[in-house]
């Protein structure tokens, strides 16, 4: 894409957003049907990330909605938020959470290197459903350890199957649980999936890159109950890919941990790597132990 085209496309995208916000009424972010409709009619901003508008990432809540850029991902067309990782958080941990309210956005994240080439693509299974507690709301959430060379983050939705619904307990059932009595037979709430949503980002552990042996606590692996109201489309096969660089990183870290007799750390690295899709991590670990 030439520079002139890129500028034009970006300008058109921004104009499109301005047009939307200026004249038409914004679709409701809490309305799944409106979000799907708006997404289907949205203008594609770009075919790769070189031309995507990058914001500066920070702790807080970002919105994937009517004003977001839209492009085609392996899992389908999606609005996205692209941002540059602040320098102090290179190699740090980031917890990304798609907040569940009237709707539920199945979260996916792609990480890019300095050249804006993807290093990792984290599918929605990396962000399992986590039930609300006193201190946090219902959410799809996962904690990622950034690789030292990762500079950009693309936050988007898995739009392959938005017919799904997230089943949440009725508030009166939660009250019964809090009082330790049998739950009354209220039906569960059915929260529709949506291509739009609010995503909370929390950076932490900025010195993580100083010690590869620091572990990342994996998110709770509870899975949302999912129901389909129509024949379910098969989601795109590609949900998680692992770059060669990531493999090397985990391979070396596991070998180093075993060499230093830090077996539990090594095992946690294996679990982390497997979660990212590096399925041979366990073999690397076993081989490292044998060679010791």
């Amino acid at each position: 894409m030439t520079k002139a085209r890129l500028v034009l496309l970006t300008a058109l995208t921004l104009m499109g957003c301005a047009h939307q916000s200026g004249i038409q009424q914004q679709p409701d972010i809490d309305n799944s049907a409106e979000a799907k409709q708006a997404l289907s009619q949205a203008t594609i901003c770009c075919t790769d990330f070189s031309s995507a508008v990058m914001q500066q990432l920070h702790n807080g809540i970002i919105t994937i909605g009517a004003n977001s850029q839209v492009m085609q991902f392996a899992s389908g067309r999606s609005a996205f938020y692209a941002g540059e990782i602040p320098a102090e958080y290179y190699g740090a941990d980031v917890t990304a959470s798609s907040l569940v309210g009237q709707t539920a956005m199945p979260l996916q994240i792609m990480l890019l290197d300095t050249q804006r080439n993807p290093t990792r693509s984290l599918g929605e299974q990396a962000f399992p459903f986590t039930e609300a507690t006193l201190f946090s709301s219902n959410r799809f959430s996962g904690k990622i350890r950034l690789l030292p060379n990762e500079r950009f983050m693309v936050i988007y939705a898995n739009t392959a199957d938005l017919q799904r619904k997230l089943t949440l307990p009725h508030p009166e059932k939660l009250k019964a649980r809090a009082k330790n009595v049998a739950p009354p037979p209220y039906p569960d709430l059915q929260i529709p999936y949506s291509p739009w949503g609010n995503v909370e980002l929390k950076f932490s552990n900025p010195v993580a890159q100083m010690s590869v042996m620091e572990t990342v606590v994996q998110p709770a692996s509870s899975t949302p109950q999912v129901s389909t109201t129509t024949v379910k489309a098969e989601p795109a096969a590609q949900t998680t890919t692992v770059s060669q660089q990531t493999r090397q990183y985990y391979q070396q870290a596991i070998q180093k941990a075993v060499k230093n007799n830090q077996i539990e750390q090594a095992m946690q690295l294996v679990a982390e790597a497997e979660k990212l899709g590096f399925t041979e991590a366990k073999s690397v670990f076993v081989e490292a132990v044998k060679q010791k």
Partner: protein
Amino acid sequence: MTKRTTRSYHRTPLALAIALAATLGASAAQAVEFHGYFRTGISSSTNGDQQAWLPGKLGRFGNETEGWYDIALSQDVYKNEQGQSFGVFVMFDGDVALKRDWEPFDSGYKNGNVMQFSDMYATAKGFIPSAPEATIWAGKRGYEKRETQMLDYKPIGVGGNGAGVQGIKAGPGELSVAVLRKDADAIATEDTVVNELFNVNYFDIRYAKLPVFSDATLELIADYAMVNKTDSQEALEAAGTVYEAENAFIPTAILSKPLENGFNETTIQATTKTFANNLVKLGYNETSFGVDNDYSDAKAFRIINTGEAYLSDSVIMSHALVYAYGSDITPTTEKVNAYTAVVRPAYIWNQNNKTALELGWFKQTNTVSGNELEESGKKVTLAHVLTAGPSLLTMRPDFRFYTTYIKADKNEIDNWSFHDGKDHQISFGVQAEAWW
């Protein structure tokens, strides 16, 4: 969850390391879950402080003055890929009188301040080869109590120290079996004091989730309370010093039907002997066994229908209807007829605001030694309710700004009166309820 250091693994033998590798995926512990509930607030009346009267008959809405609380902590301490898990559950519950500034727990029940461990039990799931879906449990437990929420009592309220197996898939439903110890203090027949605690064990069998029609389900519950007396206690009974404690059986059927955003539930119970008084007594009740009267000929029956339904998009209606009948509950109480009706329509203004009107009425007639004694009353509560709604909030506070008119039409059973001997009360207050 505590983070272990790596130091203890410095000398991990090779074989152990490989064995550990093979068990990757077995997680040591999940986060501690913290849930809880409380109700609190301020109440008053046009004549002194507000007095609650028979919430189990007239409805609890605008008719509660104390501050109940529950604090629950639980954790799955171990889980593996085979679906096996161990867990622990601990719960404190109790009451605060909400009268004074300084209300320590050790001021005791008479002052309305209590705290106890209602639960401390452990679970093990997946360890019965023929029923891997079942959970073994042991410890102190409020065991799947069934609450009629509007009336604040428990048609099935079995709790105590026990053990059991829960959730065995059996045919179309689920079978659970348990034994719980819930001892009973004996009351002397004469005006004397005895200090006898009778050992009572409840054998509880439940068959749940039995599909009936559409999405309606039936649960059958059988509780048999068996008294395990010492020789000296039998001697006290024979001498007539204490009332005779007889084994008792109470079967219950519960038909539940989920509705759109609501439900309807019918509970039918019939029993004899010691359990019978639970079904027909005036005050708070749950499944309890009293060695406090001669219940040898007692028989009782109770039917409860309760639920909640949307009458339109903006009107929601909750209700609880109870009929109970008893005969020969004690040698002098020959017959009991009890009716209760509580309805609470509410207009929903928006996600956070609704206005509710609760109407409660009851009438109970006890035939005692040939005389008919009547207890009856009515209650009207008007309240504006500010609620969190189905939002992002993690805690669900609910505020009720209420005023209640309550009238004791007849009080021949318990001789109740409000302050200064009045037969009615106009009260008002703000109650907050929260759970998480």
